[in-house]
């Protein structure tokens, strides 16, 4: 936390005339605390005064200021945030200023639940006045940490509650340009194509999305996100997935190239085979070549079984999973 600067000039509340009428209330930790807390001085004093105004239910400008102090020292204290909202309501506080306040706090505490909850409360009150500010705000946070779960949740809420979908697919594209492994951006992309009122739905978007994910797979076959995305595009329509030649051909392409990570290609091929896909001779040959073959090794007519055996070898961490997949094949026969 970066409160050092403020500490240097901080005048203790006990020495400030505007607080002389308040008697601080110390935290009651109960007898022999189980997980006792060692407190820092400034923090202790601020919280003692906070407890006093909180118990007196003092919804005043100075109490609002005090909650800001307390939040700066510890942004995780939900009781302080609650009380701040009560004061803001009582004083009819400026909500645009409040957005500025949360933005400052969020810069150093972007994974704190309270900040995001508070931010949503403010944005909800402002309504569509807040749309572009909120999209910009989450963008800023995501520039610092592109996988920040809170920022993504907030952004999805903004889109659904306040709108602002126009550039969202473009935004996903931009983030994936920066980091094609960003699973959060892939998730957002799926959210946009399935939820955006401006788009015409999953099925209509499918062809272009298949091409997009295939391209991403070819560039980085070890990236699990586009593989899962590709499969997700056929949610509830496995038949079309098995029939689409682009799916099997990307497997072939990945498996044909040397030095590629083959796990997701093999796993996808296995799923295809389990759903009745008929492999070409070329695909069979490529898989056969991946086998750690011994002398006199005959090609197994059951390609799915071969795929499982290869996976056990290339993905030893999950060997039991692939063994189970293999045993499931046997039971299908």
């Amino acid at each position, binding site marked *: *936390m970066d409160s050092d600067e403020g500490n240097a000039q901080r005048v203790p509340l006990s020495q400030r005339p505007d607080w002389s009428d308040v008697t601080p209330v110390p*935290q*009651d*930790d*109960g*007898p*022999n*605390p*189980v*997980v*006792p*807390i*060692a*407190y*820092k001085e400034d*923090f202790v004093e601020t*919280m003692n005064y906070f*407890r006093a105004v909180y*118990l007196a239910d003092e919804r005043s400008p100075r109490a609002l200021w005090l909650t800001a102090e307390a939040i700066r*020292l*510890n942004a*995780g*204290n*939900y*009781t302080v945030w*609650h009380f701040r*909202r009560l004061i803001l309501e009582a004083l009819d506080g400026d909500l645009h200023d409040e957005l500025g306040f949360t933005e400052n706090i969020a810069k150093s505490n972007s994974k704190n*639940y309270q900040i995001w*909850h508070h931010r949503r*409360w403010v944005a909800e009150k402002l309504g569509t006045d807040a749309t572009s500010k909120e999209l910009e705000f989450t963008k800023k946070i995501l520039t610092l940490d592109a*996988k920040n*779960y809170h920022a*993504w*949740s907030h952004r*999805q*809420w903004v889109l659904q509650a306040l709108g602002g979908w126009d550039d969202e697919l473009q935004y996903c594209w931009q983030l994936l340009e920066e980091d094609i*492994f*960003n*699973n*959060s951006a892939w*998730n*957002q992309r*799926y*959210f946009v194509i*399935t*939820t955006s009122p401006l788009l015409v739905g999953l099925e209509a978007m499918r062809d272009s999305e298949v091409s997009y994910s295939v391209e991403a797979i070819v560039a980085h076959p070890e990236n*699990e*996100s586009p593989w*899962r*995305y590709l*499969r*997700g595009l056929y*949610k509830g329509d496995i038949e079309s997935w098995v029939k689409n030649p682009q799916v099997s051909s990307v497997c072939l392409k990945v498996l044909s190239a040397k030095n590629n990570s083959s796990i997701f290609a093999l796993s996808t091929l296995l799923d295809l085979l389990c759903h009745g896909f008929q492999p070409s001779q070329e695909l069979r040959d490529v898989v056969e070549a991946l086998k750690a073959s011994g002398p006199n090794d005959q090609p197994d007519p059951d390609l799915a079984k071969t795929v499982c055996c290869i996976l056990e070898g290339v993905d*030893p*961490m*999950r*060997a*039991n*999973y692939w063994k*189970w997949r293999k045993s499931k094949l046997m039971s299908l026969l």
Partner: protein
Amino acid sequence: MGELAAKKHVQYILSVEKRKDDLVSVVMEHLRMNGAYWGLTTLDLLGKLDNVDVDKVVSWVMECQHESGGFGGNIGHDPHILYTLSAVQILALFDKLNVLDVDKVTNYIAGLQNEDGSFSGDMWGEVDTRFSYISLCCLSILRRLNKINAEKAVNYIVSCKNLDGGFGSTPGGESHAGQIFCCVGALALTGSLHHIDKDLLGWWLCERQVKSGGLNGRPEKLPDVCYSWWVLSSLIMIDRVHWINKEKLVQYILDCQDTENGGISDRPDDAVDVYHTYFGVAGLSLLEYPGLKAIDPAYALPVDVVNRIFFGK
């Protein structure tokens, strides 16, 4: 292969108070109820809960209860469902659920269910599948699941299911191991595991194991001891835990111990804390590490405690 420094961890938990100027401690004040649950459950799993003065803990817990029926994170703090579950779990550990006014607590929880079946965390209305789990777990321990609309609660969780078989915090939210634990746990507690594609989710969960043996919570993220709990417990509830490499995970958790001063950290050589100490020990318990009590993956309480609640033994 190293061993679990059980004695050191007990000492660590009992001695957290002596460490001064610890910024983490300051930040923890408002969630002391969670801290107490983590510390006490760890002690119980290590067979050392009798080092604690039961009456003092119980009276402190009860002092944190608000007139609404919910519990705060400390004395004088506002109630929140997060601390209410920890309070109920602590009382369950000590076989002291009888001190509760069950209707009061369960009315508080039932009042947080929304029209769409989801749950808010408190009167301010933040919605998250974490709160669904917490509510259902609390109500289940107190045997009052009938107080809410369980069918709607289940439907809301199912609406948060993703293409990878996992779950997020709200519909459309990215799959995340912590949220998955909450959703799988909630479905397990309501007998609704059939809504899960177990093979698909099981594979996603076992993909979370990285080279070091540790587990991450999302693709391309770093491993962290706390995910040992979120991922493992989910895998156990859907009966797919044999898909990961247990030996390597045990080793990873043991590598995150401070063998000198006790405690477990998120990653090897990081600073220890009570939270990761709990999740490390609980993870090892799920992995049937010798000398530890077994923990229940859905209730996050020792199995003997759960048996006592439901079978009176």
